[in-house]
């Protein structure tokens, strides 16, 4: 107590202030100490507690955004306040409000962690961040009147800067708990990732390439470094195999007895289903990989599993939403009622794009008619132009179909001289040139289209029809011979 007293007295000597202010400082000091000792007063023991605590606690993610917004606003008000004094006056109020909401958010957060039995390094980091931030805000609140009265001094601005840093760090920790560590960087452009050196070079084992990424994306936000619900961590092979407080979750060689596999294959509405709390279930493919991996020994090093072939070199391009074409809808609908070429929506979701059908006008549909579809070009994802009167000139129009994924040109007069123009179609994955005059030489230009997955040259000079295949003899691989990167990927 003597230390406390000395500090208080020194504070009083340094700052010649009124009695009320002194009380405020003393009260603040007491509160700060209380906050600092909170993690020891009530330990996070990793067990879940009363339901009411969880109920209230779950409002933490909701409440926490209020102080964040207010705290960002304070420095802004102070700075802009140099020009508009009225704004600076508001800053004091906003800061006080921020402090109050900090206290609320901190209490709710603590209830959440304690109530739901969260523990782990991430949770404690976030908790400490919250405590420190609240204290810094409190000091800001105390320091501000002096700074304001004198209008000079660096203490308060420095405190504000510290507050901002603490805020960003704490918020980031909290975000990682909710969404997982790689949430922000997951979709970072590959080039940017390389520059910033995110992610490490993947090892060649099946676990490293396929199992770990699944667990990382779906499980590690609750079972990782940040939180370790049920004492289980899945962010490394050793920790995964070690299991949680109820024992191992993986029984090598027996997926049926592995708790991990049991829990991910329950009906999604089951209480014990994982990933929990309404997070999306694993993909059937991922479940299949996990099953095969466990059944075949759950090894960290094995590179290949029996019965599992993964076409990872050539992933199908994800569907890219097309732009808004609602203004063209009347025209599209009118077209659909008449005879002839028409556009139809891929699905009820307009952003899935349009398909161009020409089957009813095939013999008369020529390059000039295709050119009339230019204004729809960016919205067309598939063009069925087979058996039309199109010639090589069509590629000048087609190269503007920038969202095109599938292109049918079978049985047309194409010779392939303009195929290289398709190189601008960065989403093109399917191209059917069967029954055209395309030669091996002109088809070679397709190799520059990186997105192409399915190329068909059946019955063309590039790939003549197989002469007299007898059903009783082994068939020659008739498809896709001219496209070495195609790996029967349908």
């Amino acid at each position, binding site marked *: 107590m003597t230390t406390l007293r000395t500090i208080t007295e020194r504070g009083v000597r340094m700052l010649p202030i009124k009695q009320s202010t002194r009380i405020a400082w003393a009260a603040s000091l007491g509160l700060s100490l209380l906050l600092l000792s909170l993690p020891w007063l009530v330990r996070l023991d990793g067990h879940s507690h009363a339901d009411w605590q969880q109920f209230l606690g779950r409002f933490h993610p909701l409440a926490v955004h209020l102080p964040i917004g207010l705290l960002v606003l304070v420095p802004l008000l102070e700075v802009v306040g140099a020009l508009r004094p009225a704004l600076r006056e508001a800053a004091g109020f906003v800061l006080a409000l921020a402090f109050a909401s900090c206290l609320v958010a901190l209490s709710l957060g603590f209830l959440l962690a304690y109530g739901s039995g969260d523990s782990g390094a991430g949770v404690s980091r976030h908790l400490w961040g919250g405590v420190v931030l609240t204290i810094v805000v409190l000091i800001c609140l105390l320091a501000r009147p002096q700074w304001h009265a004198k209008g000079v001094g660096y203490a308060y601005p420095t405190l504000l800067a510290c507050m901002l840093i603490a805020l960003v760090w704490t918020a980031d920790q909290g975000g990682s708990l909710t969404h997982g560590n790689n949430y922000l960087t997951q979709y970072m452009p590959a080039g940017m990732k390389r520059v910033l050196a995110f992610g490490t070079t993947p090892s060649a084992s099946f676990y490293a390439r396929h199992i770990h990424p699944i667990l990382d994306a779906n499980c590690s936000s609750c079972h990782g470094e940040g939180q370790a619900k049920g004492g289980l961590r899945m962010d490394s092979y050793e920790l995964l195999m070690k299991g949680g407080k109820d024992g191992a979750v993986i029984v090598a060689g027996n997926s049926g007895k592995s708790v991990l596999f049991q829990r991910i294959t329950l009906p999604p509405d089951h209480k014990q289903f994982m990933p929990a709390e309404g997070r999306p279930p694993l993909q059937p493919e991922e479940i*299949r990989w996990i099953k095969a991996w466990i059944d075949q020994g759950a090894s960290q090093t094995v590179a290949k599993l029996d019965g599992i072939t993964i076409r990872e070199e050539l992933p199908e391009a994800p569907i890219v939403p097309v732009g808004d074409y609602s203004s063209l809808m009347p025209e599209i609908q009118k077209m659909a009622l008449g005879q002839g070429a028409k556009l139809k929506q891929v*699905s009820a979701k307009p952003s899935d794009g349009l398909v161009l059908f020409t089957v009813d006008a095939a013999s008369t549909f020529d390059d000039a008619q295709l050119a009339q579809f230019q204004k729809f070009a960016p919205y067309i994802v598939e063009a069925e132009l087979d058996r039309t009167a199109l010639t090589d000139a069509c590629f000048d129009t087609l190269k503007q179909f920038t969202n095109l994924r599938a292109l049918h040109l079978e049985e047309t007069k194409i010779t392939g001289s303009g195929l290289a123009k398709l190189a601008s179609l960065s989403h093109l994955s399917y191209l059917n040139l069967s029954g055209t005059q395309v030669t091996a030489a002109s088809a070679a230009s397709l190799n520059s289209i990186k997105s192409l997955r399915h190329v068909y040259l059946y019955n063309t000079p590039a790939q003549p029809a197989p002469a*007299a295949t007898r059903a009783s003899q082994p068939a020659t691989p008739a498809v896709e011979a001219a496209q070495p990167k195609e790996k029967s990927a349908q």
Partner: protein
Amino acid sequence: MKQHPLCTDTEHVTNVLDLAIPAQVKQEWAELQTRRHFLGRAGKVLGWAAAASLLNNRALRGDNYSAAGAPGGDSLKFPNFAPRAKRAIYLFMSGGPSQVDLWDYKPNLAAQFDKDLPDSVRGSQQLTGMTTSQARFPVAPSHWAFKRYGESGTWVSDLMPNMGRIVDDLTIIKSTNTEAINHEPAIMLMNTGNMNAGKPCLGSWLAYGLGSMNDNLPTFMVLQTKLNTDENNQPVSSRLWSSGFLSSEYAGVGLRSAGDPVLYLSDPNGVDREVRRKMLDAVNEINRQTYEELGDPETNSRIAQYEMAYRMQSSVPELADLSKEPQSTWDLYGPDARVPGTFAYNCLMARRLAERGVRFTQVYKRGWDMHDNVTKILPIICRETDRGCYALITDLKQRGMLDDTLVIWAGEFGRTVYSQGGLTPDNYGRDHHPRCYTTWMAGGGVRPGITYGETDDYSYNVVKDPVTVRDFNATILHCLGIDHNKLTYKFQGLDQKLTGPVPASVVSGLLA
């Protein structure tokens, strides 16, 4: 002007600007008023928007989510999501193909020859009247050997050497199971999702939901294979491709297996196309008057069908003209394909229909109902179908059509592992078996080269990953971009759907 109840802020109030007060005060007032109005109105708008979103917004809009009413109206409802397959070809094996002899390899059965099927396997199952009085149920192992094929190493019976070559393209389901044990209810259940007649079949639901991809051929076509009297045939009839309570324009249109593909499609002598057109116009006019008088939507269906028939007068002869098919086609499908009405011909026809934008083609092959004499009949029917199935898949694949075409091969049930009637080393019979049977799919949306589901050592019960008929149908709809719970039609007070009222689920393990 009648005031909208939500817009209370436009009530008439005394306008300060009209009062006799200094202009400066007016100006001040105008500024205040603007801000107040803005804030006040914004507050109200936000409040109502929040209220609207809190209340069920469907209730506010007052619309019905079911697809009642003709699709292709104001807003497109189907496909619900981007489909993997645009069209489907369904090879229906009527009679119940024997999974024991074709797909479901059980090497251990050889040692069980003529031993009684353990009671524990059959359990309390009620059998058909044909075998229920049998004194014993002797196990009849398959007469044929099996071989492993493809990268997937799938076991396929020697009866189907050509199918063996494409197993890596197939998605084989060994755990299909049905609730019906006799042909009529089972085949209705498979096709319409209900054992009783009167419900729309899969093809009609697809036609209703997805509509046509072309103007000149029907959305849903049915090809029947010529009767082979060496086999044991069960009748099929148009009830299987009926549109049930849906508009009759969604019913399947059959192509005949002999003579004119469509009866009375050709103009009679002395009637040219122009006369036909005039006649149709007159008939349509009369039909329209009838519609205006009575308002029966079936009248509109009739007009649409007359028009379709008129267009089919030119599209069907072109479809049936195989003279332009190159030699490689005949090499692939075999010599049978030249004879109209054979299974191979129908497979070729199914490919031609798919090329011409037909959404759904169903090929019926009868003759799989082998209660006796399996060793004689089964090779005949396998010879008849093995090449056609192989050729269809291979042809679709080489032409790049397998990417967006779903091919389905299924019967209404399987056959028993025990022999019906006498069992000899050379011959046996097999009764109907609903508890497990093998089906396969290939192409758009399904995962190639896998076998899904497992049966017990007697190919009698499903032990892993059962696929019910409704799951099977839900999965087919899924491949075509349809959520089976959303494809509904209000009839008799219910939102009717193909998969029926019992919960069904898409079999995600089958999907690519």
